[in-house]
Structures are given as structure tokens and as C-alpha cells.
């Protein structure tokens, strides 16, 4: 599903963000990427959404070879990948419903289908009844779940979550993680970055540790003690 082969990203001579990273993620896997700030986690995800191009190395996602990807096909690629950000990136002037619907409007879905689809997804992330609320009326955890709803509403094969719990207190963080697990059970590959020890330990999933732009360890069912 996700394949990185000796991927290197150099922003300038003094900073090498990623140094020959290789990573293979199977379909329906749940992979946690951990590492200190500046280790290269975010760069890694930005390469996957094609916000950045690698300096060298090969990236293939869902059968799409990034070397052969043209600029005008980037929107189509991004529609196949759901992304959740640490800072939510919700549209502040739109209601919860509209924020989720937005992702469907972009791909040209009809209004009737949108009215049908959005409530079902909001149900999955446990936000039923909050359709008409504005983002500022929600808690951090609720906002992040809106963002997740938006990311999964188009039923992507891959969900990338970049420190989605970074701004949340433990209870809300755990709500968000539970939603991610649920989505993973439905068959979506999930790539999660975090440095929350507690979450890593409780999830007991495959954990990839990145240090100084390189893969330091890659273990299944890992907890923080192992790392």
C-alpha cells in the first residue's frame, strides 16, 4: 500500500530531513511513527501527500509511482488519501456539516448524495447532533473528529494522521485514537505519528521509530519500553 525505497529529503546543505528511509506498509495495517520533534516525521508525511518532493528515492502509494506523477494529477492523488493534521485545519466560517461536505463538493458530488453521506460519517466519529455547530463551539477533541470525518468521508484507502492528539488532553486524545482504530477495522490503512507514550503503549501496534532522519527501529506490537 505504501512503499518508500531509500527516500532522502535534503532541504539545504546543512539539514538532511530524511536519510535513505525505506518503509513498507501493507494494506489495512495500522502503523505508528514515533520520533522526537525534528526527527523527520512530518517531512515523511508531507512526502506522502506530495506537499514535498523527495530529493532522491522512490515512493509508491496505492500503485501510484510518484516519479511518474504529473502536477495536474496531484489533486486526484490527494483525494485518495485522507489527511488529519495536528491543528485540525477546519474552515472556521463553515459548520461541522459544511466542513465535511466541503471534501465531497471538491470532487463534484451531488447535493443529495452529500446530505446522505455526511451524517453517516459524523455518526462514525460520534458527532451526531453537532452538524450545525461552528468549529469554535466545539472542544479540541470534537474538532479533531470533524477533521477525521472530513478525511474519511471519501472513503480513502489510506488515512494519514500527523500528531492528531498533539493539541488534546488525554481523554479527548483517546477519543480520537478510538475513532482511528474503528476506521482501521473498516479496512483503511492508518499511518499515525505521535509522541504520546501512553497511546503507543495502549495500542500495541507496529511502531516505526525515526531518529535523525533514519529508521532507528521497526517492531510489531511494540510498546515504549521496547524502543
Amino acid at each position, binding site marked *: 500500500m505504501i512503499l518508500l525505497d531509500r527516500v532522502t529529503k535534503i532541504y539545504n546543505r546543512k539539514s538532511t530531513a530524511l536519510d535513505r528511509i525505506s518503509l513498507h506498509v501493507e494494506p489495512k495495517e495500522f502503523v505508528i511513527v514515533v520520533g522526537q520533534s525534528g526527527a523527520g516525521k512530518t517531512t515523511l508525511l508531507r512526502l506522502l*501527500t*506530495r*506537499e*514535498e*518532493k*523527495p*530529493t*532522491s528515492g522512490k515512493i509508491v502509494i496505492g500503485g501510484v509511482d510518484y516519479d511518474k506523477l504529473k*502536477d*495536474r494529477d*496531484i*489533486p*486526484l*492523488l*490527494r*483525494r485518495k488519501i485522507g*489527511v488529519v493534521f495536528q491543528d485540525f*485545519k477546519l*474552515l472556521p466560517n463553515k459548520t461541522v456539516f459544511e466542513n465535511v461536505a*466541503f*471534501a465531497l*463538493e*471538491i*470532487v*463534484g*458530488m*451531488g*447535493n443529495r448524495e452529500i446530505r446522505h453521506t455526511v451524517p453517516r460519517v459524523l455518526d462514525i466519529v460520534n458527532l451526531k447532533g453537532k452538524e450545525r455547530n461552528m468549529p469554535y463551539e466545539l472542544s479540541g477533541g470534537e474538532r479533531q473528529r470533524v477533521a477525521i470525518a*472530513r478525511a474519511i468521508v471519501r472513503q480513502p484507502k489510506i488515512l494519514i494522521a500527523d500528531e492528531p492528539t498533539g493539541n488534546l488532553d488525554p481523554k479527548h486524545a483517546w477519543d480520537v485514537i478510538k475513532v482511528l482504530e474503528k476506521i482501521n477495522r473498516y479496512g483503511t490503512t492508518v499511518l499515525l505519528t505521535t509522541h504520546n507514550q501512553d497511546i503507543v503503549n495502549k495500542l500495541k501496534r507496529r511502531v516505526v521509530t525515526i531518529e535523525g532522519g533514519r529508521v532507528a527501529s521497526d517492531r510489531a506490537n511494540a510498546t515504549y519500553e521496547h524502543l
Partner: protein
Amino acid sequence: MKRINTFRRVIRTGLLNFVRNAWLAIAAMAVMVVTLTTILFSVVANATFNNTIEQITSKINISVYLKDDISVVQRNALMEDLRRQPNVKNVTYVSKIEALAKYRADNANNQSLLQAVSETGNPLPASISIDPNDPTRIQNIKDFLDKAENKALQDPQSGTSYSGDRKAAIDKISHATNVLQRVGVAAVLVFAVISVLIIFNTIQMAIFNRRDELTIMRLLGATTWYIRGPFVVESIMYGIIAAVASVAIINAIFVTAASALQASSLGLLDINYSAQYFRSHFWALLGSQLLIGVVIGAVSSVIATRRYLKFRTSK
């Protein structure tokens, strides 16, 4: 279906943004109104100048006065020869009786002049009137008439009339028209550039206000035209409104202010003709104004959004 949905959303968002950015839009539209009004004004002014020149030149002709004692054969031969000359549009014969009738009509208010003619019989010579194609180039006709065999047929007491003073006036007007046309084109270009820049600025400000939204749209996989479309629709609205406004302004100038303009043009220009030209070409003028407005709006918005929509392709 998908395309229709997308198209509808792009139009709707564009119109909505147009309403929301009303104050920003007014600046852009004001400049566009000035540009389009200048363009329209020069078109109408140009038509008026050309019409004035045409009117004056059509009155210019050459009159050759004939001796009373030449025969009809001689006269007809001369007229035939004249018709064969280059730059001759029309040759007509004005008999002594016709000349008298015209003289009487022209001087109907002047009793003493009328009496002077009737007391001495008919002193007016018959004449041949020549309309040249181009009144500014009549040298060849002049040369032809000055030949000895032709000179012999002409009345020695009345010199040939070449409307020389009017020719000088025509030259002056056509020179002025040329200058005004050039000034007009320069002004139109300057205003067009300024309005493109201001629309740029307006759209860039609108984008700046919404840059977070654009980033999010990009990350969610919106295509370039889904993001750009509303800005283009918005700018096209500026163009349409500015075009209608410019037509309304020019209409006001030539309808409400027509008499004042006529007075200030010292009778040199026919402002009524301007109004008539404007009215008879109304739809063509409105259509081309709309076209220019829409093109300026669309082009500047496409260029203004380009920078913000580029994908980061550096390695």
C-alpha cells in the same frame, strides 16, 4: 453530472465572494469603469470626427465658369474630358437659369442683392461643378483646366473656385483627429494596464484573506480550476458591471450634456451625430465593452491566482 455540480459550485462561490468582497470590488470596478469609459468615449469621438471631416469634404467641389457663347457640343466635350480625369467623382452642369435660381435662394433675405441681379438681366455665368474623390489632391484637375484649349472656354471674369480656404480647414481637422486618436489609444492602454494591476491587487488581497482556505482546499485535492474558478467569476462580474456602467456614462454624456458639448465645440463638431452614432451602434458598443471587460477581468484573475496555485515541485 460531476462536472455540472462543480461548475455550479464554482459560479455560486464566485458570486458569493463578489457580494462579500463588495468594498474591495468597488475599487477594482471603479478603475475598470474609467478604462472602459475612455475606450468608449474615444470610439464615439473618433466616429464624430470622421463624420465631421466627411461632411465638410463632401461640400468641397470645383466650379468652372463658362463663357456665355460656347456651344452645347463644346460644353459636353469638356464635361466628357473632365469625367475621364482621375480623382473625379462627379461632373454636373449648372445652367445660367439654375445659377440665378440658386443665387436668389441663397440671398432671399437681401433685397438689394436681388434687385441688382434682376435689373441687369442674368449676369451669372453657366458653370460646371466637379466633385473630386479626394478634395486634398486636386492638382491634376487644376492642371487640366489650365490647359489653353480648356481655358478658352472659361469665363475670364470669374476665376475657377477651388474651395481653397475650406481645404486648409479640412487639413487642420484631420491632423487634429490623428493626434486625438493617438492620445486616445495611449490613454486607453495606460488605463487598461492600471486596471489590470488594480484587479490583480484586489484578487491578491482576496486570496490573502482566504489563503488558509486555499491551502486546505489544495490538501483535500481540489483542482486548480475549482479554486481559481470563483476568482475568475468574481472578476468577470467586475468586468460586466463596469461595461454596463461605462455605456450608461457615455449615454448620459451624449444625451444630457449634448447641448452643452455642442456649444463648447464651437460648431466644429456635430454632437447630435455622436448621439445618433451611439444609439445606432448601441448593441455593438455594449457588446464590445462587455467583451473587453470580461477579458480584462478573466486574464488578470488567472494571472493573479497562478502564483498561489503552483505545486511545490522543488526537490
